[in-house]
């Protein structure tokens, strides 16, 4: 089984549109949307949810007001400042202590050291994950709860479910739509993959972010290739990116022009290659054939 991950550093360079095309062009694959705090792949894959499960991860503390003796020990010990007096807990006793669930990271220090045993400390639901049926095979995706952390762990859940599906159905390819950035969820998306495709664009921001994401990928020693999207926006910058890629040993496997059909395909809830036979579709097909089954 091979795993291909598409990342970008900078957001909005076209990861999801390209993943949707790869989904349409490939066979025997499982799709995994690892952009768990802003998932979009399901919008163009005609996803029908077949299985959903709550994502339980981490704990949160809360104060049991009946037991609280108001000693302030929790407020003193909490390094995140999650314990507040007269916080935004509207309608509650204005002077009592509260824990802001959005700030609390679930370390449990207040729970362990509360002399009155007045802190409840329990597992929380911080999202949901789904297995869907699509016209391009099974897909695993997720939705991180509003204002929740632990996105890296949810990415790991999505990936392990995708692996499970691949094994169960004898599928040999997992195509992963990664999140932007270089932080925790990106690291969780890239680790253990066979090929990293970085989608960039010919802007100074794109170049800057490409270099940081390349450094990140090199930590994993996974083969990393690049695709320059909207390459005709600034041909000079495109040439500069190509040089940079050559210097750093990153093969440029695709050059894709700017084309309004990318937006139109999205509105039509489909991928660009299924939507039109315009030159951009050919460029994406060529890129897919070039990287082949990774």
């Amino acid at each position: 089984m091979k795993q291909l991950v598409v990342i970008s550093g900078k957001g909005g360079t076209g990861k999801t549109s390209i993943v949707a095309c790869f989904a349409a062009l490939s066979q025997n694959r499982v799709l995994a949307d690892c952009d768990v705090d802003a998932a979009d792949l399901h919008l163009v894959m005609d996803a029908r949810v077949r299985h959903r499960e709550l994502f339980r991860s981490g704990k949160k503390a809360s104060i049991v007001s009946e037991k609280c003796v108001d000693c302030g020990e929790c407020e003193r010990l909490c390094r995140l400042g999650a314990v507040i007096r007269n916080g935004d807990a509207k309608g509650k006793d204005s002077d009592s202590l509260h824990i802001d669930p959005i700030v609390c990271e679930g370390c449990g220090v207040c729970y362990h050291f509360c002399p009155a045993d007045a802190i409840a400390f329990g597992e929380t639901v911080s999202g949901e994950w789904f297995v869907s049926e699509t016209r391009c095979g099974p897909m695993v995706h997720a939705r991180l709860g509003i204002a929740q952390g632990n996105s890296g762990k949810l990415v790991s859940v999505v990936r392990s479910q995708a692996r499970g599906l691949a094994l169960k159905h004898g599928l040999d390819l997992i195509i992963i739509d990664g999140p932007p950035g270089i932080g925790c969820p990106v690291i969780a998306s890239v680790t253990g993959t066979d090929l990293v495709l970085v989608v960039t664009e010919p802007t100074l921001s794109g170049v800057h972010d490409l270099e940081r994401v390349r450094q990140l990928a090199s930590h994993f020693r996974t083969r990393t290739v690049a695709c320059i999207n909207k390459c005709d926006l600034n041909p000079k910058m495109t040439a500069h990116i190509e040089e940079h890629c050559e210097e750093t040993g990153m093969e440029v496997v695709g050059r894709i022009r700017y084309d309004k059909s990318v937006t139109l395909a999205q509105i039509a809830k489909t991928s660009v290659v299924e939507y039109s036979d315009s030159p951009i579709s050919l460029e994406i097909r060529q890129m897919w054939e070039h990287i082949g089954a990774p």
Partner: protein
Amino acid sequence: MFAERRNGSLRIAVASGKGGTGKTAVATNLAATLSSEGYRVVYADCDVEEPNGHIFLKPTIRSVERVGTPVPDVDLSRCNGCGKCGDICEFSAIVCMNGKVITFPELCHGCDGCILVCPENAIRETQREIGCIERGRRDGIEFIHGVLRVGEAMSAPLIRAVKQKLSDEDVAVIDAPPGTSCPVIETVRDTDFVLLVTEPTPFGLSDLRLAVEMVRALNLKLGVIINRCDIGNSGVRDYCAEQDIPLLLEIPDDREIARAYSRGQMAVEVAPSLKVAFAGLWERIVTRISSRNDE
């Protein structure tokens, strides 16, 4: 709420669910416009994973400061191998196996639990570097950004450190990372207004909904900017109308502005008429902040 802060300065976060919608473009153009109107402005880039504001503002950097996060340092000569540190740690950042303590600093949230629980006082706090903060100036604009060390998973402590550097300028324009999870929450928390930048496409709308829910969960005021407003469909506009969300600015798709962006130029530099649009945006933001009734 804002009136309580130093000299009545305002903090505006520029965020978006979806990446690449134009957060940095809006934030830098707004900062430049306000500065040219005589406000004392600080631009703070909290997209520490991929900070790009410096490309457009081109500040002269005058200071670099390393930022660390607290992690435990175990004095093994004092450790009695009781394992209480491993028991209290919710993040498996310190474990005790067969009486031997091992730490995994990159998992540590810096809560001090192990230090507090250790009966032998064998653990002290040390720092692990996660990135740096660079500060500088460009014309009238104070510039601050955080740069996360490549390979580092935890960005929230660095974002917190960037925000601690904000001082008493009239306006702080804070550039947020994309998404809706912890780094974004850390960025927009305790700001006076959140500008959500989106584009009129299905992806833009889907991610805008998530961002709006996030901002509402934090009880903050918000408004929407539609960038490249003429490229897609009416979904975002319909949603804003239905949800009673103020639409503060629409920016048309313009090849010249896109080219300028690609070279690292701000839109107000190539199309000075846009300053009027950004000044108008600012007026609408201020009106929204001053209105007492929560939306």
